[in-house]
């Protein structure tokens, strides 16, 4: 199984190595949990049955003073274990962003682009962002974009509206967009985009109140029918936990609790991610 949405923000070895790492975790990403040795990350994956995890940085230094992990830190972790799949993040408003992305993908071996308009403070329809989409399309990588509510302080909700992405999604039909957090609370907007555009994916890392299983059972059994996931979106959903905001094991349990067939779960928990990442061919 693959976890498509994790953040390496509480790794003790990095806190000891990089001076601003802990301040980034506390003040920019905003998480209160204790730092943990890297071993804990692997153990959290193990108890959840996760084999590989996508690591997501956010290049928000211009907007927030510090980046939420750097491309180099993500690359360093990928060098430690093949269980990690690293994404790059660049600031679309910085000159040379497209070249920086190309260097991260071709030079560092990262596998996708992570953007967060709220945390990085940019307009999703700024022409400079479209230049970056064009570069990502040329590189053949997926773009995972934060949608919905952000936990990070100072991030406006409005920047997370999934429909803001429609012009880019329509203009770049060969570029795969992953709408992180299923766009919560705008889950139906995310659903509509995924139904209309085959290059739209959603990740399951949405959890904002109650317990993970309660949250999933409400949103994926009551707010929307589970048949929507089972029949229409089965090829466009990837499992994401948002670890360490929530433990991976709890999110795996939640997705398995909503009554999906084994075949659909296999797509969500593995093969859709493999397809997006080019890890193996998948037949529909």
């Amino acid at each position: 199984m693959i976890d498509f949405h994790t953040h390496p923000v509480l790794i003790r070895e990095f806190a000891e190595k990089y001076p601003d790492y802990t301040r980034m975790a506390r003040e920019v990403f905003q998480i209160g949990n204790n730092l943990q040795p890297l071993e804990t990350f692997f153990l959290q994956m193990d108890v959840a049955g996760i084999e590989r995890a996508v690591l997501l940085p956010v290049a928000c230094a211009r907007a927030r003073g510090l980046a939420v992990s750097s491309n180099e830190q993500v690359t360093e972790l990928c060098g430690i274990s093949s269980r990690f799949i690293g994404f790059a993040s660049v600031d679309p408003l910085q000159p040379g962003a497209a070249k920086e992305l190309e260097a991260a993908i071709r030079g560092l071996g990262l596998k996708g682009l992570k953007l967060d308009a709220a945390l990085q403070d940019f307009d999703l329809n700024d022409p400079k962002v479209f230049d970056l989409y064009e570069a990502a399309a040329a590189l053949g990588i997926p773009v995972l974009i934060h949608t919905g509510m952000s936990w990070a302080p100072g991030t406006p909700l409005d920047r997370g509206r999934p429909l803001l992405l429609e012009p880019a999604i329509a203009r770049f039909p060969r570029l795969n967009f992953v709408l992180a957090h299923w766009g919560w609370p705008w889950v139906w907007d995310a659903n509509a985009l995924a139904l209309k555009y085959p290059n739209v994916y959603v990740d399951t890392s949405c959890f904002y109140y109650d317990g993970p299983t309660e949250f999933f059972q409400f949103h994926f059994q009551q707010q929307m029918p589970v048949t929507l996931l089972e029949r229409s979106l089965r090829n466009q959903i990837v499992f994401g936990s948002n670890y360490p905001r929530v433990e991976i094991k709890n999110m795996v349990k939640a997705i398995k609790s909503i009554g999906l067939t084994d075949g659909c779960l296999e797509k969500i928990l593995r093969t859709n991610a493999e397809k997006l990442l080019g890890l193996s061919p998948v037949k529909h």
Partner: protein
Amino acid sequence: MIIKLDKIKVQSRKAEEAIDITPQVDESVAKSGVKNGLVNVMTCHTSSGLLVTEGLPCLEEDILTHFARLLPEDENYHHRRYLDFDGRVGFNAETHLKSILGGIQCSFPIENGKIVRGSRQTIYFMEYDGPLERTYMVQVLGE
């Protein structure tokens, strides 16, 4: 009067786990230099515990199984809410309650430089929300 404090890390490897820390506590007492006094052991976390029972795998399993029965995950806990200051949802009420139920500390007398303990008494660090690296404290007081 000697007062020595050890902060000892333990890496749990499962979601729930009973970890025998008796040798580590014995070692803290031995190196403290205290011949007669008291040792107190306490976890530093609110979703883990410290308890004393007979050191048998069957009992370790029974404790965790029956704590789970008494405090099921799917109860209606008020703690399951958005905690903005923490950057996450507090959805682990049952682990906090297990910590309260089983206790977070234990004490033993020290005589002639050794813990005075029943022959079957084992000191366990109890993980209720792992896997995590945890810390527990061993404070030795005496002369």
